[in-house]
């Protein structure tokens, strides 16, 4: 998969892939680091705030709501 922007990737899944690894990499990394601190005692919504930011970035990049 070439490292293109989310707009030029072909399938929706590829667009999500690009959005989550390229466009929103800062937010993804913040979410991942939060999981890294809590993964021995994982609960639902343990990193809700971090994911909210990550998710908002994804939705904005994909120009879609879900």
């Amino acid at each position, binding site marked *: *998969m070439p*490292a293109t922007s989310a707009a030029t990737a072909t399938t929706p*899944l*590829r667009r*999500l*892939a690009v*959005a*989550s*690894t390229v466009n929103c990499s800062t937010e*993804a*990394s913040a*979410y*991942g*680091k939060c*999981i*890294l601190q809590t*993964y021995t005692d*994982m*609960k*639902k*919504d*343990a*990193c809700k705030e971090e*994911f909210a930011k*990550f*998710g908002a970035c*994804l939705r904005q990049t994909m120009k879609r709501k*879900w």
Partner: protein
Amino acid sequence: MSPSLLARCSKSLSRNAVPCIRRLASISSSPSPNPTSVGPFQVFDREAKRIQKDRAASRDNGERSRTVDYVRESVADSMMERLLDIKRKFNTILDLGSGPGHLSKMLDSSTTTKVIMLDSSEKSLHRDPDDEFEVEVERISADEENLLGTIPRNSQEAIVSCLSLHWVNDLPGVLVQVKEALQPDGVFMGALFGGDTLFELRTSLQLAELEREGGISPHISPMTDTRDMSNLLGRAGFTLLTVDIDEVKVNYPSMWELMEDLRDMGESNAIIGRRNYIHRDTLAAASAIYKELHGNEDGSIPATFQIIHVIGWKPAPTQPKALERGTGKTNLKEIL
């Protein structure tokens, strides 16, 4: 699919019945196993697996499937080294679960005159033309779980299997059938995925599902352990066992490429009762977790494939055997 709809679908066997509505773009082919039936525990949906392999082998005329041959080729290569250690020339070798023939292609006329490839997926069997093989090829499209249905007992000199037995429901049963299909003093050589395979993807998906949705569901198959393999081979009646493990590590740019490649290998999830989709939030979360938890310093992510190599021989009176316990004459102390 609602339960009532499901019941109606399974009853409508006649041709002009109303076709079932498929709400999800997924493969839901095999009937769900009867929990009260006696027999091996059903973990994998074999029919779904066959369809997945067929699709993988025909995507882009086989090109996609060829680009993801790297894991199987590397394992087939190390299996060849082991096969060359056997100083014997075979007339035929049976390649069980051959796929397009990753191992069969490496065989040459100094090892065997002919190779029989057996796989349940017809499309992957015929992916590559005959001229890519050095020896004569025969292709049989049959269910690996019912080996004795196609191969007569006591007929094979050697049976090899390169990375296919991890989709078999009844592994002990298949090993018994392999032993039965072999001639006395015949050899079985296999490579299968071990329990540590794809542990990075497994843990990332579990953590993502747990944190996002509050529960987990099966995405990566349960796989065999090294210790189990020696027990199972012994139980099936093989002698002179050799079991060893190897690891193949592959780096990918991100989780997405790994999942795409797995699909093109025909290795998508085929566990019975799997969820047919993953929410995109969960997928994005898993990708972020994979990178932070397991990622390399250069930003790529590793994927581990643990390979269990096994060799077993069908007993024969002429075969060399281990001596009785306590019959040794030399004291080890004198040597060391």
